[in-house]
């Protein structure tokens, strides 16, 4: 039954026993075991990533009323493997004018920045990965490496499209990092900790109930951070052809592509962890860590599906619209929401749980309503300035 309750620790102890049995130092055996564990984790992530390619292609096909991949294997399940073989045996062309070291390091950093995010993901109550006390800050730091890899790819390619795409993508990423940072503070305020596991443990009531607007702003900022539609202006097929990864081919392109999909899945997971209770599901996570991991996986897939849903429904917006949406609407709203949450938290600190939840929920709704009204009247004034005073209904006909 021990394996059922804590499979990872049992396996780790068994491996460490073997290593020390070979006459290895205890610390070295521990580090080696952890290394193998991390390796296994990342290999599993890469396998999940392969299936994400299939899911993405199948879902976009269904959104667009097509069949999608359906030739190789049942339901086209082996298509991604054929893709990998193709990417490996393709010639890897490097533009002659490129800045070679920068050009070559960029895809590696892009993949790495996504993989290290999983260091702080608590998979189950007993499978914490790294139980950092600054887990939330770690997400931001890893995201900054992603922005760095994109500017490196755009600059190193020595291509005008790539450079414009890279600049645009980084402008989007750093702009939307502000609302994202602010929304990451809301679970921190509730849980009184930056530890990811403490945030999950604090969610007897899911934080999406306490802060629905916060969850929505976080998702918007996450989509922008991922560079997906409606914020995929760095890609812009019709103007920039492909954006920052235009000069990449073979496996280097594959790394950007796989990194992007895994990034989207990871942010689906973070959305679930921060606002939807992570691995918690009505006490089922206490039965076995295996269930907890499955619950987190399902929640992350639902989050990923929502991100895909937005991607294939929305149109791409222009860069000026994107920047004014962020700096003139989302950033002030995010700060207003943070301060309202802090204020309500202080006022309701001694209230019972149901009153606390109700107060927080209503405060969110009121904040959202006020923000939308202000935006509506401001845009109306702007439109009237641009078009002259509004004509009446009869005059228009």
């Amino acid at each position, binding site marked *: 039954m021990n394996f059922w309750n804590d499979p990872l620790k049992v396996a780790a102890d068994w491996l460490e026993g073997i290593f020390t049995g070979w006459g290895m130092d205890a610390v070295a055996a521990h580090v080696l075991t952890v290394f193998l564990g991390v390796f296994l984790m990342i290999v599993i992530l*890469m396998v999940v990533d392969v299936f994400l390619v299939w899911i993405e292609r199948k879902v976009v096909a269904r959104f667009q009323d097509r069949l999608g991949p359906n030739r190789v294997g049942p339901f086209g399940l082996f298509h991604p493997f054929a893709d990998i073989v193709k990417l490996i045996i393709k010639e890897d062309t490097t533009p002659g004018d490129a800045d070679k070291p920068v050009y070559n390091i960029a895809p590696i950093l892009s993949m790495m920045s996504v993989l*290290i995010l999983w260091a702080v993901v608590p998979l189950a109550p007993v499978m914490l990965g790294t139980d950092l006390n600054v887990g939330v800050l770690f997400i931001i730091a890893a995201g900054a490496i992603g922005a760095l890899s994109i500017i490196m790819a755009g600059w190193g390619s020595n291509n005008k499209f790539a*450079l414009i795409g890279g600049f645009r993508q980084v402008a989007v990423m750093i702009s939307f990092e502000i609302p994202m*940072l602010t929304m990451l503070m809301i679970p921190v305020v509730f849980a009184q900790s930056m530890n990811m596991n403490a945030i999950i443990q604090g969610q007897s009531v899911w934080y999406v109930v306490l802060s629905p607007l916060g969850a929505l702003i976080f998702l918007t900022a996450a989509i922008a951070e991922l560079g997906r539609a409606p914020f995929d202006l760095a890609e812009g097929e019709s103007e920039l052809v492909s954006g920052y990864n235009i000069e990449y081919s073979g*496996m*280097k392109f594959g790394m950007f592509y796989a990194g992007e999909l895994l990034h989207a899945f990871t942010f689906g997971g973070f959305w679930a962890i921060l606002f939807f209770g992570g691995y918690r599901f009505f006490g089922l996570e206490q039965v076995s860590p295996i269930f907890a991991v499955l619950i987190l996986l399902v929640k992350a897939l639902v989050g990923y599906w929502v991100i895909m849903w937005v991607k294939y429904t929305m149109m791409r917006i222009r860069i000026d619209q994107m920047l004014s949406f962020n*700096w003139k609407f989302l950033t002030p709203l995010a700060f207003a929401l943070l*301060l309202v949450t802090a204020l309500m938290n202080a006022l309701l600190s001694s209230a019972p749980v149901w009153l606390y939840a109700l107060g927080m929920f209503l405060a969110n709704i009121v904040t959202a309503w006020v923000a939308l009204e202000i935006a509506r009247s401001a845009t109306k004034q702007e439109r009237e300035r641009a078009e002259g005073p509004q004509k009446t209904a009869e005059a228009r006909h």
Partner: protein
Amino acid sequence: MNEWIYVALFIIVGLIIPIGAILAGFIFGPKKPNPVKQSTYECGIEPVGEAWMQFKAQYYIFVLVFLVFDVEAVFLFPWAVKLGHLGLYAVIEGIIFVAILVVGLVYTWRKGMLEWA
């Protein structure tokens, strides 16, 4: 054991996997470079000039605005963690702190620097 060793291991393995994949592509792929193939892609037209040129300065202004808020976040995270213990006084301090930053945003806004010209 120090938690950051796990993070270091994650970074090491996270570097090994993509390097391995790219090396596999390097080993198995054909290598037949020629000058035309290696020229910079510009929709089939011969590339004109270099891409490393002067670029729109507006991006720089957004980065400056971003920097202010990014640094501010480092101060706000500890505030958010301890908010439950410090009570209303800390909330009012936080409001004043954010208000000072918002003045900066409003200044940028009124100067017309947030318009994409």
